């Protein structure tokens, strides 16, 4: 395996900041019997229930459709109620325990920022549920129970201007 210097051997990278969004629930859906309309139907039901998605990651392959969404913990009950009313939407749905979003900004579309973040979190043994880029931020999804260690790990790698929570 190739070797690479990392954040333990280089100076911290200056970032404008880190934004933490908490009190969230992760909803994951994986469906191998995807009929083509399920994503639209599921999103429609969530919209009707007024559920805002703080983060959405979805993809479709030849084998299945899979998507993950972070919603306010208080919306977890809305989602469970939807599943009860629409059993066909329940297939492959998992609602996790509390998660947080840690958004590091700006990423400048730089793989190094993403790489260093992943290395820092991996070394701190923070299991990730996922990550996603936007126009300016890289957002990591981690268990709420790991929040303090995750923030400390990222601070060990990046010089953060502001912390927003």
């Amino acid at each position, binding site marked *: *395996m*190739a*070797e*690479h210097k*990392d954040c333990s051997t280089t100076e911290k990278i200056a970032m404008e900041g880190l934004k933490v969004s908490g009190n969230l629930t992760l909803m*994951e859906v*994986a469906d191998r019997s995807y009929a*083509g*309309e399920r*994503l*639209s139907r599921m*999103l*429609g039901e*969530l*919209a009707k229930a*007024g*559920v*805002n*998605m*703080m*983060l*959405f*990651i*979805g*993809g*479709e*392959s030849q084998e299945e459709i*899979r*998507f*993950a969404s972070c919603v*306010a913990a*208080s919306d977890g009950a809305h989602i469970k109620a939807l599943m009860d009313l629409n059993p066909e939407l329940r297939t492959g749905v998992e609602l996790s325990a509390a998660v947080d*979003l840690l*958004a590091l900004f700006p990423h*400048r*579309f*730089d*793989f*190094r*920022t*993403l*790489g*260093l*973040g*992943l*290395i820092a979190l*991996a070394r701190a043994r923070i*299991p*990730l*549920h*996922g*990550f*996603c*880029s*936007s*126009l*300016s*931020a*890289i*957002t990591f999804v981690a268990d709420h129970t790991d929040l303090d260690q995750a923030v400390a790990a990222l601070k060990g790698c990046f010089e953060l201007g502001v912390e927003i929570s």
Partner: protein
Amino acid sequence: MEWRYPDLTPIRCPLPFLDDALETKAAYRESRIKTYGFQRMTGLSLVRITVHRSETESLGQAFCRLGEEGIGFLLVFSQCRGQAMEVCLVVTAERVGVVEARLGEFLAGTDRLVRPGVPSEMVFFQGPHFGDRYGILEAAVRGLAARRVKMTAAACSGSCIYLVLPEGKSEEAVATLSEMFEIPRASSTKLSTTCR
């Protein structure tokens, strides 16, 4: 308190200093959801990698090397399922070879699957308070599904919605989305293929 009007796309603003029971909701009067216009990118490639979660550090090292070589991404997103982490990278088509090579080097000997890059295009857009509102991605997905415009992936965090489409489909997607969403008169769609 809640004010609702028919056919609106509401904004939802929980106030953290108040009790949950006093959540405040407000709504825009919008018959069509406003956007700041659509950005369309062509000449891209979607690379999918599946690694064991224990290989996150090696994946990070591969990304660091790519960054040091001056290679950037347009969109990255990842989901985990059990111990498997699936990572999707959208990069320019001319960079896909080096991206696959570095992933191969750094993840050699690990239990990983790097699927060859798939020619892709991307559409992304923002609008007022998109990060705080519900129903916007749903409107986009519903519109595309109604016109049978196939979408490979979607990702949104913050206020920007990204749609990854098969090669040759972004123009049709923008035409469809333009029927669903309101776009500024001065600017409609910007086409871009530039990237590091």
